[in-house]
């Protein structure tokens, strides 16, 4: 990467740090840094606070309202927000479907959808997984049949995050049967207020409502809501996936978690001393820190390789594997540090009202996030799938 790119990114870093100190709605930061559940209104305010500086779509091209960020700037943006304990930058609109629309969409689609996505005037959901199509996404069975100028869509999507708040869902559907199962898949934008859409909440083991089943029963979707050609859905899905994988957040989240783990170990008592003076536990923390240092080095190396054009397709998979593994171990160790507060759980306190049954303010949130985060090695391509990808693309190993 060039010196100029580096300096631009460092300027952005300073701006974001300043934003986290003073621009950020403090009620939201208070909740997110404690891993509490944000409601829709809070998420929308958060996204709009980012967009007030153009950052929500900073990675978009200028012609579509973005800031033309380099990969490094995008990394720094995610890294710094996560380090400060900010909420998740809701990706479904700005990160996932937005780039698909400006890359593959028609002019009317761009005019219609991009502005509300950038402004978070619409909430989007992702309709990919199905009960029989998890890792094997190409096995999806939700079918769209063309009747005149509408598709009639039938099927079931699952693990659909925040569908309960969503206005729209981008969706992979089968529009034809083909020998090669990846063919015959198309990419539709579905208005979730359409008749025939049913959304059923699914509680995850943190006892919260993040994900849903979305049932589609003869839902009519105008043909102009298909992005790309009929049958081109797999290509778009792969494009989206490649875009999805940016890993600043993984590094920043890890540093945030490590810092909290350290303060907690310094605060908690352990038989007359502080927990941090338990040599076995201290060692665990230091071993985790070395892994975070390695993750950060690997991430910057991948970024440097990417910016010099030498990126391997396996790098995103490697970063996802390592970031999710180290984070799971960090948050699990943090739960351990909580001692008995790590097994007391009241989901009623996770929305910001009242303290948890035991322990510090964020004990419930830490526990909640530990539980929910078990899914981090499953969603977005499970660790097993990532290893298969690396085996094939980086090592040339065939099954």
């Amino acid at each position: 990467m060039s010196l100029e790119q580096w300096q631009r990114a460092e300027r952005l870093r300073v701006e974001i740090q300043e934003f986290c100190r003073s621009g950020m709605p403090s009620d939201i930061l208070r909740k997110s840094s404690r891993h509490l559940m944000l409601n829709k209104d809070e998420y929308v305010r958060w996204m709009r606070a980012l967009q007030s500086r153009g950052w929500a779509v900073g990675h978009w091209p200028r012609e579509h309202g973005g800031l033309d960020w380099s990969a490094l700037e995008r990394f720094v943006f995610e890294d710094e927000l996560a380090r400060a304990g900010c909420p998740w930058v809701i990706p479904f609109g700005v990160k996932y479907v937005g780039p698909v629309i400006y890359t593959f969409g028609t002019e009317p689609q761009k005019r219609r959808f991009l502005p509300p996505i950038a402004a978070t005037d619409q909430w989007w959901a992702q309709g990919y997984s199905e009960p029989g199509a998890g890792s094997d996404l190409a096995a999806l069975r939700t079918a769209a049949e063309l009747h005149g100028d509408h598709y009639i869509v039938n099927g079931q999507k699952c693990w659909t995050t925040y569908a309960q708040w969503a206005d729209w869902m981008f969706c992979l559907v089968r529009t034809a049967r083909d020998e090669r199962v990846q063919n015959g898949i198309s990419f539709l934008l579905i208005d979730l207020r359409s008749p025939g859409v049913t959304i059923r909440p699914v509680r995850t083991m943190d006892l919260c409502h993040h994900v849903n089943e979305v049932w589609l029963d003869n839902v009519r979707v105008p043909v102009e809501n298909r992005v790309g050609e009929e049958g081109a859905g797999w290509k778009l899905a792969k494009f989206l996936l490649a875009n999805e994988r940016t890993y600043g957040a993984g590094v920043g989240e890890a540093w945030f978690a490590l810092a909290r783990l350290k303060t907690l170990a310094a605060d908690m008592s352990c038989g007359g001393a502080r927990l941090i003076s338990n040599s076995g536990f201290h060692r665990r923390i230091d071993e985790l820190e070395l892994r975070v240092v390695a993750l950060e080095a690997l991430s910057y190396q991948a970024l440097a390789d990417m910016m010099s054009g030498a990126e391997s397709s396996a790098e995103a998979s490697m970063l996802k594997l390592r970031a999710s593994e180290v984070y799971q171990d960090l948050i699990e160790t943090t739960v351990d540090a909580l001692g008995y507060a790590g097994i007391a759980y009241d989901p009623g306190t996770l929305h910001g009202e009242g303290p948890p049954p035991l322990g510090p303010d964020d004990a419930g949130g830490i526990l909640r996030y530990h539980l929910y985060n078990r899914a981090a090695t499953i969603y977005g391509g499970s660790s097993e799938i990532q290893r298969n990808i690396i085996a094939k693309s980086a090592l040339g190993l065939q099954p």
Partner: protein
Amino acid sequence: MLRQSIERYTAEHYTFEGRWAALKSPRAYSEQAWSDYGHFGWLALRLPQESGGVAAGVRTTAPLMEAVGARLLLEPILASAIVGTGLILRRASADQKAQLLPKLADGTLKVAFAHQETLNAFSEDAISSEYRGGAVHGSKVAVLHADCANRLIVSARKRDVGGTVSLYIVDAVARGLRRQRFRLLDGRGAANLSFDGVEAEPLNASGAIDADQAAIAAALEEAIVASCSEALGAIRALNAATNQYLKSRKQFGRPIGANQALQHRMVEMHLLEQEVRALTLAAQRALSELEVGRTRIISGARAFTCSAARRIAAEAVQMHGGIGVSDELDVSHYYRRLMVLGTLFGNRECHFGRFAATCEAIGH
């Protein structure tokens, strides 16, 4: 015999589906099941024959504790029938026993052991609650099933005899006692307790000045071994579920269990289960045979079980994929139960430290 009847009863009357009602009820357990356990004599196992029991050691109660883990039972078996009963058997006077044992046997009395005072699970907790003037002052945290217990057995320092830790029995609705009820992560009830001069009766069997202290140590050792059995039951059930899922779930046109990487990981889980089983049985023997080095075997078994359980639970969720994270399937309930078992009565670090302290002597 006991094992079969427990398995038969729970398979019929305590299915995962049927368990939801108990889990969501305000009491957080099934009154019907509890009364059935009393009826079948399972709550009296440890009692002497004259009180309707079989004077069972913790080894004999192992099938019951394994079922607690395997079926994710929510009732206060460990708290009341194992630990609380054990303390009463050791330290209650004949009069106290005559009053308490019949009710423990039929389940009308539930006791909980209020001992832990701080959040620290990394080492044995120091007790600072006090008994003075016939009343207990102090506080206790995360007491398993103290939410539903009728009586509490409380550890406190007896001021007038140099601060020896002794045992007291307290009515759960006594004046001056505040109970903050909540659920543990696995849905079982618990409570934080605050004693502001609560009238308390000493467990007053005759004995040496440190007899209560010794009884506490013994009860905690029994609790640890019992929780190893509970973990073993949960691990065995969870591994069976994962192995079954590997055979039935199809992706890319074949069972996911046809993938050698998953097979080898499942083999590792199976091996860990066998080691947990072998160590749990060794710990049971160490308890009942008063072997030299019982701490070594018991805390060693516990430390090993904690790490094995953690790994098995994580792998079970991972190999199940998305469905493993949902609250709807039993997998995540085993995950949470095993988390709770990894902290109650001291976590891995606590017991590994106790084990390690026995390793000092060179050789063996």
